[in-house]
């Protein structure tokens, strides 16, 4: 069976007539798109509009998308799929340190003594970052991996701790308690640079090693080992990915890990830091550019009138002084008909959001949906207007910002296919139709506007980016480069220089929402494999010798108990839906734990199973923990199709 789902590039705009999408001229499509937005704003106000911006597109595109939202429409309802992955990391890091980026650089990972990878499988999901991890390991760094599965990342590790899904906070707290009781906390740092320590000490005190073992399943001795290794290391890197953030209490999870760095002083120094590993080439940049509902470019607070006024001066239009809706809130608001028009650039929420049925019906309820993409995705199929765009990474000039906050130039290598147009050009055409006569600015002009508004990007001219082959933010001046790590200030002697202390996060344990019981006894967790990417839109068209389509990874013990063989199709059901999927028996799994990806929605729609319990702070859904049952299916029903 061919698991790839190749899409053809879109080269003609499409408009919906009589329920069907039909080809249209650019003029007609743009007119229709603009008219729908105009009508929405006129009838329901600007806050009925929502923008989903693209984490794979350039900084310049993201900046223009949020500017379109704020200036042309007049709302702060702009967000991206960042919400479904690392928004909690940004929220957690911002709460502790005032800015939401990873604090170290790749080079420091190669030059550290201990690397902790918690809730991530970068060998598969972040292979470039993992090359840096391997260099670190080859240079002698010890590697600890915390993950329910013994992933291929864990196979490289000195120690693997296989915790229960959703018990990260008890594990982190027990590590903290052990560090405190062993007298290994960095007292100087705690005293000087943190706040809320006493409360934190009381918070973690109940989490003895044995209490944590009972809750997390990790042997007490292993927890102790990690605690001592982390506290004793001269340099240590704490890295996490979606195993931390795709939970209903994700921001709390992030805070719990940050607490460990605060307790041991593993932040603000060369070689020591906190690193959320980002999965899209520009998921960092999208947020940096203000394509999020609560921040303007450069993480500047939208609630701060002084900040707003600088943007207003340049943009010539007032900006709402209230946070807009997150992606998750926008979808909820569709149900209440608060959001009536949506502009989706390069996103595929139908297949990336949890609970597919709900997402589809919400999008159907919109008055006006415009999708701008390079492929006719499942989301685009629902649109009123489909605008064929360019592939940002090769068909436009601009910049990307990677996980280590490094802004890098991307140069146009190809013209978009005949008929497709550059994202920014399309937005400008729409803006013009909506009464804002935007010229089509060059990428560098847009970037210079970013620099004029965002102090942390100010020193990064295109010329300088080229000269240094990328520059990490912050970069305040064209004359200097800042250190490769953030928050050095926390180590300063002078309290004025030190600034705001970093607060310990006082966060409690909250188990996954979707409870296991007799009917749904298996914990389903989701993630990626090496050769496919998210919903497969971008990778399905490439052949891969490793690709086996969607599979349910199952422990040998459970396979025995269920009496299923490798490759046999089973029915997996949650409280929300059910799918048929072939089984893959894997040593990496333990009894009670199963794993699927969401790479092959045409074959198996995993999001039918997942739950949309979301993190109240960051809005990220709990993809990592669903309760499911597994049944053998009888002969004749083995064609793996989703059951709606």
């Amino acid at each position, binding site marked *: 069976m061919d698991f790839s789902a190749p899409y053809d590039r879109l080269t003609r705009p499409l408009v919906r007539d009589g329920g069907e999408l039909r080809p249209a001229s650019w003029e007609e499509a743009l007119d229709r798109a603009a008219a729908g937005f105009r009508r929405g704003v006129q009838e329901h106000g600007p806050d009925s509009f929502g923008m989903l911006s693209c984490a794979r597109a350039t900084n310049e595109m993201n900046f223009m998308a949020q500017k379109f939202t704020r200036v042309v429409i007049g709302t702060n309802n702009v967000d991206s799929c960042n919400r479904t992955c690392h928004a909690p990391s940004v929220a957690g890091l911002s709460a502790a340190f005032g800015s939401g980026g990873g604090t170290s650089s790749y080079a420091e990972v190669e030059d550290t003594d201990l690397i902790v990878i918690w809730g991530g499988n970068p060998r598969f999901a972040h292979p470039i970052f993992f090359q840096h991890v391997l260099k670190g390991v080859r240079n002698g760094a010890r590697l600890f991996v915390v993950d329910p599965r*013994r992933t*291929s990342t864990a196979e490289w*590790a*000195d*120690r693997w701790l*296989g915790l229960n899904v959703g018990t990260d906070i008890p594990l982190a707290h027990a590590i903290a308690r052990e560090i405190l009781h062993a007298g290994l906390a960095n007292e100087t740092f705690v005293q000087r640079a943190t706040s809320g320590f006493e409360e934190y000490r009381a918070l973690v005190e109940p989490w003895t090693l044995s209490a944590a073992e009972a809750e997390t399943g990790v042997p007490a001795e292993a927890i102790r080992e990690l605690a001592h290794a982390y506290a004793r290391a001269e340099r240590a890197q704490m890295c996490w990915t979606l195993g931390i953030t795709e939970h209903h209490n994700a921001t709390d999870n992030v805070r719990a890990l940050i607490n460990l760095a605060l307790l041991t002083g593993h932040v603000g120094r060369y070689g020591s830091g906190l690193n959320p590993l980002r999965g899209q080439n520009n998921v960092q940049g999208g947020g940096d550019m203000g394509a999020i509902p609560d921040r303007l470019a450069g993480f500047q607070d939208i609630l701060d009138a002084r900040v707003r006024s600088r943007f207003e001066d340049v943009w010539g239009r007032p900006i709402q002084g209230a946070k807009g809706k997150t992606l998750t809130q926008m979808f909820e608001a569709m149900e209440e008909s608060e959001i009536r028009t949506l502009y989706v650039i390069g996103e595929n929420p139908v297949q990336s959001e949890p609970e597919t049925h709900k997402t589809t019906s919400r999008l159907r309820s919109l008055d006006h949906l415009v999708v701008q993409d390079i492929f006719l995705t499942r989301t685009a199929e629902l649109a009123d207007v489909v605008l064929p765009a360019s592939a940002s990474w090769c068909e436009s000039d601009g910049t990307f910002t990677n996980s280590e906050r490094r802004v890098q130039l991307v140069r146009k290598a190809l013209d978009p296919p005949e008929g497709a147009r550059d994202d920014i050009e399309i937005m400008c055409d729409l803006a013009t139709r909506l009464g804002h006569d935007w010229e089509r600015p060059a990428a560098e002009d847009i970037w210079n506007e970013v620099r004029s508004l965002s102090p942390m990007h100010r020193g990064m001219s295109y010329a300088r980016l080229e000269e240094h082959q990328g520059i990490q933010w912050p970069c305040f001046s064209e004359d200097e480069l800042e250190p490769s790590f953030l928050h050095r200030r926390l180590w300063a002697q002078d309290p004025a220089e030190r600034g705001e202390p970093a607060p310990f996060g006082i966060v409690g344990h909250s188990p996954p929402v979707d409870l296991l019981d007799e009917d749904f006894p298996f914990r389903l967790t989701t993630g990626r494999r090496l050769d496919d990417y998210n919903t497969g839109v971008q990778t399905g068209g490439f052949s891969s010798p490793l690709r086996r389509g969607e599979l349910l990874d199952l422990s040998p013990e459970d396979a025995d108990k269920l009496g299923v063989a490798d490759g046999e199709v089973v029915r997996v059901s949650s409280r929300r839906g059910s799918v048929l999927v072939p089984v893959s028996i894997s040593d990496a799994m*333990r009894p009670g734990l199963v794993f699927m990806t969401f790479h092959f929605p045409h074959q198996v729609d995993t999001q039918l199973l997942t739950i949309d319990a979301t993190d109240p702070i960051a809005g990220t859904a709990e993809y990592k923990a669903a309760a499911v049952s597994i049944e053998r299916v009888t002969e004749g029903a083995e064609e793996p199709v989703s059951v709606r």
Partner: protein
Amino acid sequence: MDLRFLDETPTDTEREAVDSVLGPPESGWDGGTRLDTDLRYARGGHTARDRRDLLLPALHAVNDRVGWISPGALDHVCRRLTVPPAEAYAVASFYAMFALQERPRRVVHLCTDIACAAKGSGPLRDRLAERHGPPGGHDGDVTWHESPCLGMCERAPAALAIEAGPRPRSAVAAPATPGAIDTLAAASPEPAANGHSNGRANGVPAHGPGTADRDLPAAPTTFDDVPLPGTDPEPAPADAVPDAGSPDHVLLRRIGRVDPLSLDDYRAEGGYLALREALRLGPAGVIREVSDSGLVGRGGAAFPTGRKWQATASQPDGPHYLVCNADESEPGTFKDRVIMEGDPFSLIEAMTIAGYAIGAHTGYLYIRGEYPRALRHLENAITVARERDLLGDDVLGSGFSFDIEIRRGAGAYICGEETAIFGSIEGERGEPRTKPPFPVEKGLFGKPTAVNNVETLVNVLPILLMGGPAYAAVGTEGSTGPKLFCLSGGVRRPGLYELPFGATLRDLIEAAGGMPEGRSIQAVLLGGAAGAFVRGDELDIPLTFEGARAAGTTLGSGVVLVLDDTADLVATLVRVAAFFRDESCGQCVPCRVGTVRQEESLLRISRGGDPASEVALLREVGQAMRDASICGLGQTAWNAVESAVDRLGLFDAPGAPARERTP
């Protein structure tokens, strides 16, 4: 890079063999039974990967035990060491002595290399083929291979049989008669399954359970000391030295006079006096004596040993390592074998001194896989030396800590190259590395390393006992000390000869009794396959480094292979070319392709092709190999052929005038 393990299980026997080298598995993750604790916790990483150098010993253990390495056994080794099976397969398939398909337990290696071919290995090959089918067959009770030089050239033609089992056994037939070959190739019944699988040395301490109540000797050796049933006992090591016991011997003086298994014998003949002297001199003093002695490497490259030691000792990076290159595989060379078989303690003592001088605490003794007796004698010597505190944490009570690990090669000539040997020890393919960095900076495990040949090392003992200057007075100004020559081929008494530098080729051949009645010398191959031919009328060449150089040839490793007037020179060249083609590691293009082209061309000549056009091609290919190959193998692969063309005039038109000496 990823660990994609195979869906194959090892047999209990294979598991036991591997675990006898690596110790019992710790958990379900490294090849043990999956337990509940394994569902929550795994150890590995550095601890597991740091044992990568045990890959080769583990593969040996399986191959020794069952005769081949099954996918299940390979997978088990990989799980134990955190090595991707694809990588381990690449390593296992690198070596000629490992089989990755099932084969009979007994394997006969028949040497068909130059010296043995000149002494009639051809009919033996035909006999084996007739009785046991083509080489490398997987059916039947035995299998056989044509082997490159087995290092028994003094009693050519030679054959070696190795039989896998609870304790592998071996036997040699040399000179091999048809009857002896038949005995070697006669299968013995499968031994009783109970027992004898643990405690084999394999160069590393065994951790396996149940070693206590065993009836093994006190010093367990990899190979059983009882040869294969029905075979003739191997002649004593001293039989390789025709003038054994000569008072003029320095390096060979103990050969034939001591029991090679007895430390007491060794000490009674002056053993361990040099180490005592070294400890008195201190490391810098030892290096000074060795530098003053003018000793240069005897492996073929003739690099000053004192300089190598000084360069290693002065490296700030640590630890330092010593590697003794006992991978004696240059066709025609057998000197190191005779030392290791006949006077093994001298090598152990010399390595200890070298380790002391360069600041190493571990020495690796890398011995070729085709030397079971030398391996047994060395394993015994190391065990005994450890018992007497001559190796270990406190050598001779001096506080100096030094120990030796044996690593056994598995049939790859290239592993004798001074950087390929590192890869082989580290558990990688034995592929040479580019230089710089040189081994003294980044050698074994990336650390400063001195690599020395066996003969070079044992020269250190007389240097310390005589003093460097006195040693330097022996020989000539440019070539000091005594030298071992491996004389084989058509002379009356082939064997290992020790002569002070300065003797001529004629002196050496006369020492061996000259040529038999009615035979004349057609050509002499100096330095082995990587060396060069000289003519029978060039016997006045002095056997010194400078003399050989002046004569446009090389001493190499001390091979002097005399081809008489009956020898088929073209066939000899084809064999040399086949050797290089077979032994090229394939890493760099000039050598990988060039050695094939060279052999093809010589084969065409041997089948009547036009020498004139072939010689032009050979010259071009040879020059490309010499100029562009990474290591000495490719760089020298055309030497012998070139000398046969230019010096012997082998392909000159009939009636052309004989050549003058061409430097």
